[in-house]
């Protein structure tokens, strides 16, 4: 086990780094700038998606459709889903943290294809703006983020076509990113660094990128056929012209189920980085974690039809997809047990990063349990397309991925900016988010089981109180954004100076200045062969040496 510490910064080469705020608006090729661009851009879209979610929850405080016109409600829910998936979670867990961290982790100066990387990012803002602006042109798409035909063929065409174009651009961006990550992880590793010595996030991104590259083109092809159906009146999915609506669903979910793993696998990777550092213990079960990721990638590709149990699927197909889906619980379970084992016996600093990570574990376990239940055909038939499913996937993508995004921001903000976030405000943010989130989504399980379908603007009056409770939770979640925003903005000017390595971490991004220089390290890239070597006497001594050197 060796750690080579790079030499201290020398003043001359610091001039190479482009200074100032403007570089974040430029076609920068620096993976760290691109990472921050992804993160901030994604967060702005998150605010838009969150505002749309608030509009939905306001509409649902009363059982009648009274807050907005019915077709606008469908546009709002379509935009909410599309923005949160394609413009917030996918770009941030992959693009933002992937770009920032992967070159550090493999000991590289940048990504394999820096220009492709910049192109991948710069596809996102125009696609997002186009998607949102479609509302002001002729009404946005109103067939949900799933865009099932024939509804997507019969609703106003302009909004649907703009929706397809934006999703195609975002899918393209995602594929460019995926290719780049695979090339970087496999080919740009620092000499001497073996695959099984990489930090877990690299494995998560390798798995995710394989899913991106295999499944996103299928979505692209499907949406192109759908756009032909809309503009050229072809009949691929149009039953009046001999098309088949079920084929669309198969093709759509062939991408969109792996998309769930594209949203959560990187989050798994990020948590695997955060937990060992703040509990001062090695990551438990590294090898089984790696195999679990690859098992999830493989199984994730063969479970798509569990979204279609009520679509008229033959019994044998229902059974196959039930069993395949249920078995994803095994590798996923291994990861969760390993994380708890990582915490167990550690010296845990109860900071905002670890709180959000543990919030993630708790929320995701609940989402995973309802997921296994939903995989069972007879159970799914009753609750499919109801608020039970809405609750389930928000536990996965919000309680899972978004909690990890916040955890990661608290963890890496010192590296991004050189300053610490305010810990007290961070905890207020966590409590508001955790309580608000559970208050918003836990009651929706009951709503779904008792007869409230999803994507409705009006419902049976017996559900009014529970819906209001859920809306109150949504209000807390909306409010929780305020302390967070204040924290990140205020701390970037007034936050405590972080120094190189405020968490005493061993992964390579911490073995350089905060924020790091243009080419990541001033000297040679450090060779970290045991990124989780906490708790070892020898290491502790190395750090003490490092500390005394500084003083």
């Amino acid at each position: 086990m060796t750690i080579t510490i790079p030499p201290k910064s020398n003043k001359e080469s610091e001039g190479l780094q482009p200074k100032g705020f403007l570089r974040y608006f430029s076609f920068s090729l620096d993976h760290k700038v691109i990472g921050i661009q992804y993160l901030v851009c994604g967060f702005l879209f998150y605010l838009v998606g969150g505002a749309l979610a608030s509009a939905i929850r306001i509409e649902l405080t009363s059982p009648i459709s009274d807050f907005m016109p019915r077709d606008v409600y469908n546009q709002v829910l379509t935009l909410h889903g599309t923005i949160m998936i394609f413009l917030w979670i996918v770009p941030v867990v992959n693009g933002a943290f992937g770009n920032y961290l992967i070159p550090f982790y493999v000991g590289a100066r940048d990504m394999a294809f820096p220009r492709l990387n910049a192109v991948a990012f710069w596809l996102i803002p125009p696609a997002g703006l186009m998607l949102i602006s479609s509302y002001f042109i002729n009404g946005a798409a109103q067939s949900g983020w799933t865009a099932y035909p024939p509804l997507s063929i019969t609703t106003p065409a302009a909004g649907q076509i703009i929706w397809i174009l934006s999703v195609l651009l975002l899918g393209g961006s995602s594929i460019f990113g995926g290719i780049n990550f695979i090339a970087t992880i496999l080919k740009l590793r620092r000499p001497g660094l073996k695959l099984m010595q990489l930090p877990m996030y690299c494995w998560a991104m390798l798995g995710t990128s394989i899913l991106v590259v295999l499944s996103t083109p299928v979505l692209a092809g499907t949406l192109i056929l759908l756009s032909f159906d809309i503009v050229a009146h072809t009949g691929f999915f149009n039953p009046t012209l001999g098309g088949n609506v079920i084929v669309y669903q198969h093709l759509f979910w062939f991408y969109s189920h792996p998309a769930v793993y594209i949203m959560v696998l990187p989050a798994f990777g990020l948590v695997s980085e955060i937990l060992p550092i703040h509990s001062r213990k090695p990551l438990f079960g590294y090898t089984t974690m790696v195999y679990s990721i690859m098992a999830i990638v493989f199984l994730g590709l063969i479970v798509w039809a569990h979204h279609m149990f009520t679509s008229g699927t033959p019994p044998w197909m229902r059974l196959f997809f039930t069993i395949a889906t249920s078995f994803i619980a095994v590798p996923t379970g291994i990861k969760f047990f390993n994380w708890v084992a990582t915490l167990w016996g550690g010296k845990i600093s109860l900071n905002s990063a670890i709180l959000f990570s543990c919030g993630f574990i708790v929320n995701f376990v609940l989402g995973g349990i309802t997921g296994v239940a939903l995989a069972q055909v007879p159970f799914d038939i009753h609750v499919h397309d109801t608020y039970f499913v809405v609750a389930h996937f928000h536990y996965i993508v919000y309680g899972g991925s978004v909690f990890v995004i916040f955890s990661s921001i608290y963890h890496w903000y010192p590296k991004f900016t050189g300053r610490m976030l305010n810990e007290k405000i961070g905890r207020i943010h966590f409590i508001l988010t955790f309580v608000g989130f559970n208050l918003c989504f836990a009651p929706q399980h009951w709503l779904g089981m008792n007869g409230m379908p999803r994507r409705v603007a009006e419902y049976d009056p017996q559900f009014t109180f529970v819906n209001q409770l859920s809306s109150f939770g949504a209000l807390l979640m909306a409010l929780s954004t305020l302390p967070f925003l204040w924290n990140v903005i205020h701390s970037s000017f007034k936050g405590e100076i972080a120094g190189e390595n405020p968490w005493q971490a061993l992964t390579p991004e911490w073995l350089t200045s905060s924020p790091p220089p243009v080419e990541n390290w001033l000297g040679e890239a450090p060779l970290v062969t045991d990124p989780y070597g906490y708790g070892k006497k020898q290491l502790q001594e190395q750090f003490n040496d490092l500390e005394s050197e500084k003083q």
Partner: protein
Amino acid sequence: MLKPSAIITLLVSISLAVGGVWIIYNINLLPEAASSNAPVYDELFRVLFVIGVILFVGMFAAVVYSLIEFRRRPGDQEDGLPVKENLPLEIFWTAVPAIVVLFVGLYSYDIYDRMGGMQPLDHQNHGYSVSSSEEKVWGGIGTSSNNSNMDLQMQSLPVEVTAMQFAFLFRYPKGDFISGELHVPVGQTISMRMESNDVIHAFWVPEFRIKQDVIPGQPTILNFTPTKPGRFPIICAELCGPYHGGMRSTVVVEEPEIYQDWFNKNSNTIVS
């Protein structure tokens, strides 16, 4: 020889399991069970709920306990133990979920079979005048095994469902009339053949625990046997346009005599 902490762990686990089971049998989270499917479904739900509650509470407790017990005390600068792996433990928590998942899968297969999901569809189609071999009819869920013998199958009441934006229409081929409400006699197996005129809809009766998409260009089949008289909502569960939330109807389950009166009043053919 058990250590005191192990005894406590054991006691906590037992009380957790007992408490979980008690809650599940005393708090009803599901709506009224009004079809022969529903009690079977509720049985599956209870089993899944018990397993889920135990798993969730266990994981939740482990995380909260770790955060409290292993928190860094002020002044403590040491690292935790360098435990990297523990093969028996890892095998244990790979094997246990695998067994649980396998059990759940087999059990839900059994439930699905008891709901009639595995029966070949042409056996369920005897109530039809339309020959199912002429067109490809896709499966919903079958009849309950309580009613799976051929005699009852032959007697199943055929209804043709047409869905459109934003209503369901029910045609009774035996009486050659169309109704906006679905009237069915209690205890009789209903065999519905459903098709949509425009976009995808879904036929859902929460009290019957059944749902099946109604698809344009692709007829689907759904069989059920109501067991309780009453009026239950029929809800469209697939986004179908602006008035999707308002696309509701009612299924009226009546005693056979009352149903027969209603049928005779509406029928356009002479009932033999």
